[in-house]
């Protein structure tokens, strides 16, 4: 029983998720949701890597995903800390109020 699902299917899913991630970053103003969208981006990459790993029969992709997950966790931790600190100062997480510097 052969599967009709090919590598490209997975890549499509990954690509759409990536696009959603980008869209989320651009559309949303809530820093937290933006961060969620960024996580979606990373997940899209993960999916692509896993799929490549599977279809190419090379393990490196999975290893990289491992690192990505670990780094993403660290990034989220740092990011949320910054957002919290920012909220403490400005009482907002809306990114379009971050415009004290321009010219």
């Amino acid at each position, binding site marked *: 029983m052969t*599967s*009709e*699902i*090919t*590598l*490209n*299917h*997975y*890549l499509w*899913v990954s*690509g*759409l*998720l990536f*696009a*959603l991630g980008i*869209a*989320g970053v*651009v*559309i*949303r*103003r*809530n820093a*937290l*949701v933006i961060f*969620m*969208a960024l*996580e979606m981006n990373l*997940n899209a990459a*993960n*999916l692509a890597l*896993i*799929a*490549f*790993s*599977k*279809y*190419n*029969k*090379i*393990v*490196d992709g*999975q*290893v990289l995903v*491992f*690192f990505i*997950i*670990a780094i*993403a*966790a*660290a990034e*989220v*931790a*740092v990011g*949320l*800390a*910054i957002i*919290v*600190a920012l909220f403490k100062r400005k009482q907002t997480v*809306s990114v*379009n109020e971050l415009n004290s510097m321009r010219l």
Partner: protein
Amino acid sequence: MNVHDTLFWFFSIAMLLCGVFVIANRNPVASAMALVLMFLFMAGLFVLLEAFFIAAIQVLVYAGAVMVLFLFVIMLLDIKASERRRFAFLGVFGGIVVAGAFVWEMRIILSQPVIPLQSGNTDLSAGLENVVKPLFQHYMLPFEVTALLLLVAMVGVVLLSKKDLK
């Protein structure tokens, strides 16, 4: 259509729907919940791709740790209703333009099958060993660097969240 394919379609569509929900929902809490679901469906896809170890980590780290952190922060900050403003038209438009353009380009790129220049012969489904062993052998240096990174993150989070200022 076999089980694998059915599950693929189910997980994919569900995951993407969750993704849409994340960015389309005005309530951050709901977004976070959708994101958890998305992570879980993603883990399902990983399983379909025989990446069991990664799937497990995905559930543990993402759906578990990361999402808890998110929810925690959302609750902590207690964002008021006024924060849940409507979307800015330009933002939505811009997001759709960029995402749409990206998808359109992906359509062209993925219109033909992606064939690698070389492929290996590792059997990834054979068990953890094949995945984890290289992690500590080949990839020792990145691993160490990641460790440093976590240290940095820890120091950073402590610093940024310390309440008192000496």
